[in-house]
């Protein structure tokens, strides 16, 4: 089973990397970019019987830092 974990910074947490990329997009002449936030995509291949609780525990314990990040678990259709 393929799983995608989308990790993103919580609203309100400053994203210096996103801000720098925003400036770069402005510099390239792309008008109308209002905000840039950079996150992380983690793709897992797991046993088909892996439970949601296990996936959540993986995110809580390691894959995301819930002090600053949110995560979303997406099961990819085979």
């Amino acid at each position, binding site marked *: 089973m393929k799983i995608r974990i989308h990790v993103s910074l919580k609203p309100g*947490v*400053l994203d*210096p*990397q996103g801000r*720098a990329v925003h400036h770069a997009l402005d510099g390239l002449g792309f008008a109308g970019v209002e905000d840039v936030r950079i996150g992380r995509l983690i793709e897992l291949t797991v046993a088909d019987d892996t439970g949601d609780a296990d996936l959540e525990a993986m995110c809580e*314990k*390691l*894959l995301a*830092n819930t*002090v*600053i990040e949110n995560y979303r678990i997406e099961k990819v259709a085979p």
Partner: protein
Amino acid sequence: MSLRAAVVTFPGSNCDRDMAVALESVSGEQPIRVWHGDSALPERLDFIALPGGFSYGDYLRSGAMAANSPIMREVAAAAQRGVPVLGVCNGFQVLTEAGLLPGALMRNASQHFICRTVDLTVANPDSLFTRGLEAGQRLRIPVAHHDGNYFADETTLDRLEGDGRVAFRYVENCNGSRRDIAGILNETGTVLGMMPHPERAVDAAHGGTDGRRIFENAIRALAHA
């Protein structure tokens, strides 16, 4: 002053030797070196140091992998028992990732790696590590980091300040840290995480010895405990 200290080395630690040398130069006793994969700490430790570096290549997030290494379960248990723990730079990142200190260290606001000597002020002179210093006293200590931007939510920051758990602040905020925070303590004041490197300021040849004060204070406080 006898001190039974341990310095933990993770794959990618690069200040572990400096930390051991600093501790030995102050205490006169060579610290025990511990490897991240060890499942036990030496017995009867007085002090544990988590050094700076780039453990696990900063994969995932700085300190995240090291925080889940076997030895950290033991470090957490020792901290729980009241054994003083000092985490410097990557060691501070490991302590926050392990949940032994609140908040997180994010990418510097400037996006740049910074490597220079900065001025700190002592925010809490009553901790194990700062006793003997004065509130507002300035220390000059080097920083060298890419992810030193301390973040915690407003409630946590208020609690840290209200409880005297901010140990050090930057005089000039060099990395975007909330409320200029350079180092914080846990609830019992026995775990200190700080981004600046006191072990790089223990010998006159380093250009300053202000870092030495922190080790001396801790060791003196432990001797009288």
